[in-house]
């Protein structure tokens, strides 16, 4: 029997001890009419050899492609040590660290993670993770409304990832929080601080500021942050963690810095894996920490005054406060954070900076080569990080399909989410792409448009 160690003798002895004749008898408190009998629709069991064969066939069917899609999930080199250590049983199969003395490994690691993320985002404190970037943003919106006390409105630019906006709406609308979307400049692909200054937005709890934004364009974060603060609202940065090695972190935006920083942690050592598991990160100024959702680890001492780590500020959490908790979140993405912490330790500050700079340079190079092709133009004039929008002379779907025949996943079509942009393609070339990869892509694009 798969994964059940009991011998016949064991079962007999155990039933004798219980005083029951059969295992069936142990279910005698369940009303008979509810017992379902034989299940249908479940296939017979496979041996490990058989399932391995099936999974390898399916993996082979899916194959490998040269990937130039970003749009919220980014391909980066992941050192071999990251997942070899992360999948050690002591990390992989351990429980949430409620028993601090038996979980010092995970707890110390999470404290190190919080320290790294606080520094990367320029904030005072980080929590131990959220589910993903989209839900982290939704929780940040709830947190801002709780802290603001008078307004239940959140401003979100349309340059924020479209699915993040959907997730935020789905989650915050339950609490009668209004989400107002802000238009962007179709020339530069940014939110224009001037247009906000001329707008009549007065009563709102927070402004969300993406950096870079969904088009890969860099926003004028200082002016946006200061504008939000001038309206007594919070500034929430939604940021790419790789980019932060190069770009001003949210904690240093404008004259006072953003109040909350969130984002998708996937670029920090997490494989693309069809979309998950990833992890969301959340960091904030220390005055907001008691409104922060999720787990937070603190450093303390034991009876012998020896350093140790515990889950702390738990009075915010559901297992203590039940209906009065800051969020219902319980399980988060611990193992992904383990990988990210090992990743950040292996690359270090200079390594991460080089990854960011090379990704930026590769995207510039790719765009430079592509715009030389007739029928390809930059969609926006704003500066970019490692992703750029291009307007094509032919339907994006057709172009992508031709690129795919050459083994290239050429990018993400913006048309569905932004119909006003027409045939616009979002491309991303991270540090994983070589010069010849970029040339191959450009050649394939030339053919596709020719």
């Amino acid at each position, binding site marked *: 029997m798969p994964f059940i160690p009991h011998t016949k003798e064991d079962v007999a002895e155990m039933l004798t001890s219980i005083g029951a004749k059969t295992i069936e008898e142990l279910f005698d408190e369940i009303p008979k009419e509810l017992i379902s009998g034989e299940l249908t629709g479940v296939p017979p069991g496979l041996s490990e050899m058989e399932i391995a064969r099936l999974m390898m066939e399916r993996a*082979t069917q899916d194959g490998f492609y040269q990937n130039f899609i970003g749009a919220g999930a980014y391909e980066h080199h992941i050192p071999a040590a990251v997942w070899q250590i992360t999948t050690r049983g002591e990390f992989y199969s351990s429980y949430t660290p409620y028993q601090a003395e038996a*979980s010092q490994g995970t707890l110390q690691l999470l404290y190190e993670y919080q320290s790294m993320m606080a520094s990367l985002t320029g904030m005072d404190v980080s929590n131990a993770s959220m589910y993903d970037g989209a839900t982290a943003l939704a929780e940040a919106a709830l947190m801002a409304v709780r802290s603001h006390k008078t307004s239940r409105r959140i401003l979100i630019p349309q340059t924020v990832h479209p699915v993040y906006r959907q997730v935020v709406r789905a989650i915050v609308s339950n609490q009668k929080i209004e989400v107002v979307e802000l238009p962007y400049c179709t020339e530069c692909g940014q939110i224009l601080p001037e247009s906000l200054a001329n707008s009549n937005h007065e009563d709102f709890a927070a402004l969300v500021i993406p950096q870079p934004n969904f088009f890969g364009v860099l926003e004028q974060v200082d002016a946006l942050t200061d504008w939000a603060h001038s309206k007594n609202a919070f500034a929430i940065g939604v940021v790419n963690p790789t980019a932060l090695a190069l770009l001003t972190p949210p904690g240093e935006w404008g004259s006072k810095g953003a109040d909350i920083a969130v984002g998708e942690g996937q670029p920090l050592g997490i494989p693309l894996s069809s979309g998950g598991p990833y992890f969301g990160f959340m960091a904030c100024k220390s005055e907001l920490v008691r409104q922060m959702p999720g787990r937070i680890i603190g450093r303390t001492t034991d009876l012998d005054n020896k350093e140790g780590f515990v889950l702390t500020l738990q009075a915010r959490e559901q297992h203590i406060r039940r209906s009065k908790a800051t969020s219902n979140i319980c399980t988060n993405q611990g193992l992904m954070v383990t990988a990210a912490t090992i990743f950040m330790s292996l690359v270090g500050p200079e390594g991460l900076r080089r990854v960011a700079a090379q990704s*930026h340079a590769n995207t510039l190079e790719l765009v430079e080569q592509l715009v030389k092709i007739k029928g390809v133009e930059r969609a926006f004039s704003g500066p970019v990080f490692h992703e750029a929008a291009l307007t094509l002379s032919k339907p994006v779907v057709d172009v992508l399909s031709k690129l795919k025949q050459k083994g290239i996943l050429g990018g993400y079509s913006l048309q569905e989410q932004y119909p006003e942009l027409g045939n616009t393609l979002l491309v991303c070339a991270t540090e994983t792409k070589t010069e010849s990869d970029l040339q191959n892509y450009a050649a394939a694009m030339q053919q596709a448009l020719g």
Partner: protein
Amino acid sequence: MLIFEHSRPGRLNYSQSPAKPASKSAIPQNLLRKSKVLLPEVSEMDTVRHFTRLSQKNFSIDTEFYPLGSCTMKYNPRACNSLAMLPQFISRHPLAPEDTGQGYLACMYELQEILKAVTGMAAVSLTPMAGAQGELIGVMMIRAYHESRGDFDRTEIIVPDAAHGTNPATAVMCGFKVVEIATDKDGNVDLDALKAAVGPKTAGLMLTNPSTLGVFEKNVAEMSRVVHQAGGLLYYDGANLNAVLGKVKPGDMGFDVIHINLHKTFSTPHGGGGPGSAPVGVAERLLPFIPIPIVAKEGDTYRWITEKDKPQSIGRLSAHMGNAGVLLRAYIYVRLLGLDGMHRISEFATLNANYLMAELRKVGFEIAYPNRRASHEFIVTLKDIKDKTGVTAMNLAKRLLDKGYHAPTTYFPLLVPECLLIEPAETESKETLDAFVSSMKEILQEIETQPDMVKGAPHTMPVRKLDDVKAAREPDLAWKPDA
């Protein structure tokens, strides 16, 4: 020692990043970072040593028995991990076209079908990323259902007092008022209290069955009738599905919406606190509201169901497809189990729990509900011991760590004083259970002979009892170089 303390300025792992800083840049000066990033500068070998050593300071299923109630800490088969990490699967971009992911989508589709079969629900969405998110999504569907009927007055969700903290927290996060109802002396929800609580304001009832008291709600059919008659819906918290998998389907018990914790019943790893995964299942009447994406099969082709197919859907609750890789691990696990294995899970989980309950009672422990069958878990109460000796459930739990066992769930459910909620998953052998009973018996003797030693436990862990009060009063939440 913290990783930062191994750091030396200028140290770089040259094989792990581009060889030289990139020459090209077009980032405006005013957007460039001026402050330093405080990541450690540590060699690859020292990094590997540091995190390997940290791992060794953890308890884990791979190293210890976790009799942890309502958490279903069963063996996490290694095949599930290695096959989910095949290079084609982990390199696949979530927005890659459907025709480049037919192998992956086939696994997801089949997982949906198998989960439907074992729960008796009409459809399953795999998107929720943890139990609490599954709950949130479930309760959002309850709200969407009532509102679609023009019924805006249903503002209350009923939750038994024994429920997980996530239940009331979820209801509030969803904008509902929580009405808590009591448990009777046998551990069932008090039916009269339920009858008194329901009415035109009732949106739904959230129920865990078997409950967190480790007993099956015998009156579930009647509860279902009462709630439905009042116009409310029934939510099944699948935290304890392991106890009844293959025996009873939540759909047959009358539940309208459920979540299934794959990181419990379907053996995906707990990972030191996630990633979880909690697919939701719905009955017919909630079908229009189910969250996307879902995988559909058309002929031999698999495709995503989107908002175009489901205009009334409550929408998307994750950036992509939930915890896709966790779902793959669960799929591999259900295929390894197959039909027979699926039936055996609850049988052997229940056998283990009832055996352990019987043996612990024989060595002198008091069982909270002695006249009930254990489900896959049961409660020991140390109230008498505490009254006599001052030794608490937490002291005993910490002493178990010294004996090489993870502590059971303590002080939950809140309504049983000095409780230990004990769940021995089906993957534990009789020898392991017997050894655990011996250790529990030893601790009972220690409580008599050396109560202060027990109160000071643990004694053999990397640290002794930690100062939680200091941690909360003087929060030290991030390392600073000058600290």
